[in-house]
């Protein structure tokens, strides 16, 4: 990797880099995040349309336009290597740019799922789209936050929107899930907030760069108090990314929430939460020596627990929830090793995870639309009833399991590599063992789809809608194509994974 990076630097930037606008020049403060502004305005507009218009089509169209405009804005915005607009409240650097794109991508696919999902009542879809867009703004801001207040607000924006979205189905399980999510989230963010207040009290600063400066060189009871504050803050972020032992809401909420929302929750907040966690760890970098063992341990525990419990699940959403916990465990490797290679691997795996997990959820939505069931048994014999869908699902599952030549493998490859590179052999071995465990439940679904005879023979009806097909197709294509030719992606990410390291 080191040599690879070296050669990349020496070479002239390839054409792909033009896409992300890595052009020199400082932006005007306030204009650096037009994408967020567009999404916010668009979100408000969609909420309005949703409240007034009949049917969800107008709201959907508006949402797509908003997304397109947001993407265009993000595309064209000049992003200097690092700028801190809004008086340093947020940080626009390539790293956050990557996460903003991830958030946009997640939103786009989830929008497809939400518009195709039959379980979301037509009446509330407009609101749903609007909230999705606002949630997207929160995700982007989380990745950009450079200040405790921004971090807190962005997280709350994401949280509150998610609570509502989870409870969108007018039925008991959805309401239950929303309540659990709310209570769990409120407690976690309360604890985190208290931690922030302590941190502020200990350092007298709220902005991350100031925090870093203030934390440096502390010791004795002061360091101890800082660590306690850090532990409290960890609760909120760990909750967001479903890190064990703050994961317990995950399966219950994923099961109760509408599938499209579950898809969103399984990717968006995870990515943004990891970005924020990384930034926070940057801010607390002087404490890294103390935090690192804990993080490593929790990484292993997270992936192991997620994978073990996933083995015994019978509900596909619940299974994917535990799978998410396991995947977060893998993602945490990139964070826990805290090297540049690790960060690159983290980003690559996030991209992979976005496509394969959202793709998997698209399959779940399709099957739920067809069978009305989210039990694993609904997948029995699916290969005969919907061969294309089954193939796509198999691709996503195999990618999640890390089978080459799919994108998930590339990500896992880099993550394991980063662990070995950092000398964390035990971590790498644990991850490898976990991959083997995970194989069981992923292949179990494949087994059901392909090996078991179907309960009924006729094709799945209704067959996936065009929106769903688009989601499935694009995710599958990305998983496969980027798995086969990950070069450009890696190139891009090696430029984006620039986090100030100490």
């Amino acid at each position: 990797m080191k040599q690879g990076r070296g050669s990349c630097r020496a070479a002239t930037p390839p054409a792909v880099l033009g896409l992300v606008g890595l052009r020199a020049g400082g932006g005007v403060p306030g204009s650096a995040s037009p994408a967020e502004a567009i999404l916010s305005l668009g979100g408000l507009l969609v909420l309005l349309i949703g409240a007034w218009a009949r049917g969800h089509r107008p709201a959907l169209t508006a949402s797509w336009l908003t997304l397109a405009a947001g993407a265009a804005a993000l595309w064209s915005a000049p992003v200097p290597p690092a700028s801190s607009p809004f008086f340093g409240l947020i940080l626009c650097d390539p790293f956050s740019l990557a996460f903003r794109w991830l958030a946009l991508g997640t939103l786009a696919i989830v929008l497809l799922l939400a518009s195709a999902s039959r379980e979301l009542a037509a009446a509330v879809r407009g609101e749903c789209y609007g909230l999705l867009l606002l949630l997207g703004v929160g995700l982007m801001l989380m990745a950009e936050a450079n200040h405790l207040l921004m971090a807190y607000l962005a997280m709350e924006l994401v949280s509150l929107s998610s609570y509502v979205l989870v409870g969108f189905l007018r039925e008991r399980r959805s309401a239950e899930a929303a309540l659990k999510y709310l209570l769990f989230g409120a407690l976690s963010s309360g604890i985190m907030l208290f931690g922030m207040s302590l941190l502020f009290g200990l350092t007298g600063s709220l902005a991350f760069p100031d925090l870093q400066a203030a934390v440096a060189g502390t010791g004795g009871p002061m360091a101890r108090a800082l660590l306690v504050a850090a532990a409290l803050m960890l609760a909120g972020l760990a909750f967001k990314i479903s890190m064990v032992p703050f994961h317990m809401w995950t399966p219950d909420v994923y099961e109760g929430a509408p599938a499209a929302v579950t898809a969103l929750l399984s990717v968006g907040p995870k990515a943004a939460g990891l970005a924020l966690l990384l930034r926070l760890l940057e801010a607390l970098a002087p404490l890294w020596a103390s935090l690192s063992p804990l993080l490593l341990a929790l990484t292993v525990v997270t992936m192991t627990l997620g994978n073990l419990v996933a083995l015994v699940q019978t509900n596909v959403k619940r299974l994917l929830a535990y799978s998410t916990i396991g995947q977060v465990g893998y993602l945490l490797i990139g964070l826990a090793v805290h090297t540049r290679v690790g960060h690159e691997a983290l980003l690559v795996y996030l991209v992979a995870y976005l496509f394969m997990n959202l793709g998997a959820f698209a399959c779940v939505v399709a099957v739920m639309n067809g069978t009305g069931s989210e039990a694993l048994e609904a997948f029995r014999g699916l290969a005969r009833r919907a061969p294309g869908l089954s193939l796509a699902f198999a691709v996503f599952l195999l990618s999640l399991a890390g089978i080459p030549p799919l994108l998930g493998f590339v990500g896992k490859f880099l993550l394991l590599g980063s662990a070995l590179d950092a000398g964390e052999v035990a971590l790498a071995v644990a991850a490898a063992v976990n991959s083997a465990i995970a194989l069981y439940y992923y292949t179990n679904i494949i087994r059901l789809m392909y090996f078991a005879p179907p309960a009924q023979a006729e094709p799945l009806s209704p067959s996936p809608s065009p929106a769903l097909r688009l989601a499935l197709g694009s995710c599958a294509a990305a998983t496969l194509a980027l798995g086969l030719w990950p070069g450009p992606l890696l190139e891009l990410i090696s430029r984006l994974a620039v986090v100030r390291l100490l």
Partner: protein
Amino acid sequence: MTFALLLLAAMVLAGAVWVVTLRNLFRAALSLGVVLLGVAGLFLLLEAEFLAFVQILIYVGAILTLVVFAIMLTARLQGTPGTAASPASRQRVGGALAALALFAVLAGATQPLLWPEAPPAGAVPLAALGQQLVTRLILPFEVISLVFVAAIVGAIAIASGPPGGARPR
């Protein structure tokens, strides 16, 4: 000064204990009012008059009212009087131990430190706060408005009655 502090502290603590222990939810909500007022008093003591004002206005005036409404509404939905005592929890001991441990950890971490005494004239002027809100903190200000919209729209979407009965399935 110290006396006022102690009084407010006692008020806050007593109120908080009631909030978490009173069986009757309605009374607990009222106790929360006591706590909020106590905290507002503390804000005053800390020369954050504007905040104290906001605390009373928003918290006591809006949130608490909302809570009381909600208690009544859910009671009606449940078919039980809103003032009914809710049964005791099964994990009181565990909860108490955990909370105590948390307190101990926090106190153990912060008490040994040398805390700076507040400067006699270090109060934040209201004007500065206002100016900050429209300059440096303009972004959070915008974001919190988004949060408001999201919360209100979402709350309406969730809490409103079903338009045509159950979900279309």
